[in-house]
């Protein structure tokens, strides 16, 4: 469903991605791990073109989306993204945060958008908060709203950029539960995370990135349990 070929990204002289080749199948959950600065987030942000790759291609459902003629908005609406810092719209209520995209991008009627939003809020376990503003919610609740906001677009894939890194420890579980449920429902996902236990549990495949390349990849048992590469081992010995 998503494929990258020779993906590279530089910020000035800083060569963050040095050639990434990945193919992600429908319903696959790919977990990306690696030290900070390894390029995990940049890789994820290149997939929905929040970052413009310096070289290489990104294919989404067979279409080369790095082609300058492609309408990036049409690509992005099919790929939901969840951010480390939630990035909810602070001047809108929870329900308006969720209905904005479907109404303005997909042209869904306000009634239908609200109905979908309520169903999603129920699904992420905060149905009673629809009239609240983001600042009235805890971090975990805000992130669950952000997930609902992304899902409201009915995307074909979801990208999670360290979705639990900005949360207090007691709130990480409630957010991981939601992501886990999505995985069980067969959502295609790319998850950048520092939660190794979670990576092992939900990942169909784990990518270990370091210094802009994929050092090692395979099943969670393989990469996390019996890592072959010394850099993977060194990283895991620090975080496990």
């Amino acid at each position, binding site marked *: 469903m998503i494929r990258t070929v020779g993906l590279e990204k530089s910020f000035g002289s800083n060569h963050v991605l040095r050639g990434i080749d990945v193919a992600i199948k429908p319903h696959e959950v790919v977990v990306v791990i690696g030290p900070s600065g390894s390029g995990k987030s940049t890789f994820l942000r290149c997939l929905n073109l929040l970052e413009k790759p310096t070289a290489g291609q990104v294919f989404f459902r067979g279409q080369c989306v790095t082609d300058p003629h492609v309408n990036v908005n049409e690509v992005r*609406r099919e790929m939901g993204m969840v951010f480390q810092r939630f*990035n909810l719209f602070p001047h809108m209520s929870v329900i308006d945060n969720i209905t904005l995209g479907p109404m303005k991008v997909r042209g869904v009627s306000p009634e239908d958008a609200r109905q979908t939003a309520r169903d999603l809020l129920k699904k992420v376990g905060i149905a009673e908060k629809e009239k609240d503003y983001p600042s009235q919610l805890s971090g975990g609740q805000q992130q669950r709203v952000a997930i609902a906001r992304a899902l409201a677009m009915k995307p074909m894939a979801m990208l999670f950029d360290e979705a639990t890194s900005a949360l207090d420890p007691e709130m990480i579980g409630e957010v991981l539960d939601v992501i886990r449920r999505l995985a069980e429902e067969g959502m295609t996902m790319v998850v950048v995370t520092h939660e190794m236990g979670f990576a092992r549990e939900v990942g169909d495949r784990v990518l270990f990135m370091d210094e802009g390349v994929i050092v090692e990849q395979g099943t969670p048992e393989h990469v996390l349990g019996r890592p072959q590469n010394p850099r993977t081992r060194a990283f895991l010995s620090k975080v496990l």
Partner: protein
Amino acid sequence: MALDFSIIPGIIPALLVGTRMTIGLAVIAVAIGLVIGSFAGIARVGANRAARVITSVYVDFIRGTPLLVQLFLVYFGLPTLIGRPVPPFIAAIAAMGINSGAYIAEIVRAGIQSVDRGQMEAARSLGLTYSQSMRYIIFPQALRRIIPPLGNEFIAMLKDSSLVSVIALEELLRKGQVVITRTFRPFEVYMVVALIYLAMTLAISRLVSWSERRLRVVD
């Protein structure tokens, strides 16, 4: 020579006429400035390079030169180019409006840039276009931060409008000068003129800090 406050009641009506002109000038100038400044401020953060360069030359020129010189350019300079005189009132609001536009452009730019980058990213990642993201996400948040400095810009315009007295437009200061030729009491008259300016600017700065408090609660 002793102060003579008994003249004050007699001069107040004339000064109030000038005050009305002063307020009118500032309101029209800031209104024009708001239109120019909104477009210029948006262009300053936009992707169009030509628009960025043009607006930054405009802002630098206006902020780097005295309003009085800009006024003279319009009132004395422009007629030699277009071959006919520019009425004082038109010259005044044109110079002040263009001047205000540059300061408001910077206020608008700062307001837009004060909104967290993640807001634009979240909006774009939903598939909203750049202009939809600006309209629904960035502007509403920027507006809250723009209103207080806009009040300060209005205060500055109110005070700077006294400069147009030199082109014989009868605003508050000019009215004071006219009154002095009748009463020969410059100290008393200028004192009253100063107090009228003070009353207006104090009232507006109160309004600004009240709006600052209100807008913060919503955030």
